[in-house]
């Protein structure tokens, strides 16, 4: 699986309160959530984002609350992949559970600028900055998580488990 898009670049500690502010949490509709995605950190994000675009961030992306609305909003806004130096653990879990692609890569943040075109190969973890002609290697997923993602997230996993019990 591959994706290619324009980069939105952010720094350390992008928290779930700026990804989707709590004032919008009175809905669970992905499209409504997406309409306010990143509003408090990047007011023009929603206007500029196109299907397939990529977020590149530094450390501890998604820190703060456990709201799954955060990865849901990012995914529904059209983002195909988030690349960060590290992720907050609940965000990491949530992204995998809902099938938002995320990659941990120590060097990508320094080597990619906002607006660059980047392509990602999820099988190999290879990230290519098409604009600059450079490449970066992301950490591969542990096998259990690969299985979870390949199966379509946690819900199909639960369905399979329940079926096996019967």
């Amino acid at each position, binding site marked *: 699986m591959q994706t290619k898009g324009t980069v939105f670049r952010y720094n350390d500690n992008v928290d779930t309160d700026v990804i989707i502010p*709590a004032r919008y949490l*009175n809905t669970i509709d992905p499209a409504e959530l997406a309409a306010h995605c990143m509003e408090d950190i990047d007011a023009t994000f929603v206007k500029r984002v196109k299907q397939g675009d990529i977020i590149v961030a530094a450390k501890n992306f998604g820190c703060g*609350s456990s709201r*799954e609305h955060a990865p849901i909003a990012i995914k529904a806004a059209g983002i195909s992949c988030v690349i960060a130096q590290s992720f*907050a653990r*609940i965000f990491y879990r*949530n992204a995998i559970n809902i099938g938002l692609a995320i990659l941990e890569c120590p060097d990508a943040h320094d080597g990619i600028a906002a607006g660059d075109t980047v392509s990602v190969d999820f099988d190999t973890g290879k990230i290519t900055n098409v604009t600059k002609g450079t490449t970066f290697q992301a950490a591969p997923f542990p096998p*259990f998580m690969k299985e979870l993602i390949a199966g379509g997230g946690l819900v199909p996993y*639960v369905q399979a488990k*329940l079926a096996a019990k019967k």
Partner: protein
Amino acid sequence: MPMTMTQKILAQAAGLNQVEAGQLIEAKLDLVLGNDITAPVAIREFEKTGAGNVFDKSRVALVPDHFTPNKDIKAAEQCKMMRTFAHEKGIENYFEVGEVGVEHALLPERGLVGPGDVIIGADSHTCTYGALGAFSTGVGSTDMAAGMALGTAWFKVPAAFQFVLEGKLPKWVSGKDVILHIIGLTGVDGVLYRSMEYAGAGIANLTMDDRLCMANMAIEAGAKNGIFPIDDQTRAFLKEAGRAKYTEYAADKDAVYERVYTIDMSKLRSTVAFPHLPSNTRLAAESTHITVDQVVIGSCTNGRLSDFRVAAKIMAGRKVAKGLRCLVIPATQKIYLQALKEGLLTQFVEAGAVVSAPTCGPCLGGHMGILAKGERAVATTNRNFVGRMGHPESEVYLASPEVAAATAITGHITDPNEVA
């Protein structure tokens, strides 16, 4: 191989004699929690699993605390969805307005969490129950749905940092100052993926409310959980909460910690976290230049009885500074009632503060005290991210109830020693 306290609890819940850091396990759950923001998403996902019924009607807790009493029509619809689900599935621990409180104060008070339990909650501050020797951690809504369906969850066994607490806190310094000090040391991602395990003789000098506040903010250091050893204070708390059955675990003497911090609590002073990170800490005494529009005393961090007792002690007979709004929000009905009986609420109202029904309210910028552009609040809550309490250009300073009360009187950030 020796194990940490967290690892021992997880090993038992996974039916294993031994686990080690990094291992993926499937553990049995003692409780699955959700609130009015996260449960609606979880309910939608739960229905997709086709499970039909929850794994155990007595082991699911649904707590509508964030936007209640319903702040608007959409919030009312979300609560209705929870209520209907709870009714249909026969869930025993659903709490209606009138008995509801902020989840992480309510569940310990009701004896629903205890030593040795493995608990997931679709709320990041689920780590609070580590104060009682439980393994508890925040997850997302899909995890909650899976937990409700299967009664199990997958975990990566965490490594640990140890925090050795020595000595006794000075007057007007409390658990909040200890945890803010620690987060200032580690940074907001310093303990990422790991357990914060507490040890040391100083723990005996911390009240249960102090410990609940400290475990609550483990997530603010990026940790998976924060956990305290069990002592007589823990046992007394559990007895009072009506929790009779539980298993006590202790870390092996030779358990391995990736890092050990030793903290002499007698050296700590009132501490404040400046915007917009809980790790951005300074001493209150050095922050007096910050003028404040609003003070909030409440939340799952510091909305407990001892917090109101100490705040009332500082505020009694004094007036809230002119032009400042002071909000007092007891975390549960039980706390509210006791504060009422002790005359604390009278003292707050006489001082010019407003007392609210239990709710998360302003803590997450929900309702009941939202900040306008450019406004500043001192809050006993746990997060001060951009826009957390309202307008993206407003500011939140995190502090203890002692500092919050002193600040309410003077109108600027104040070390309680200056006024009391």
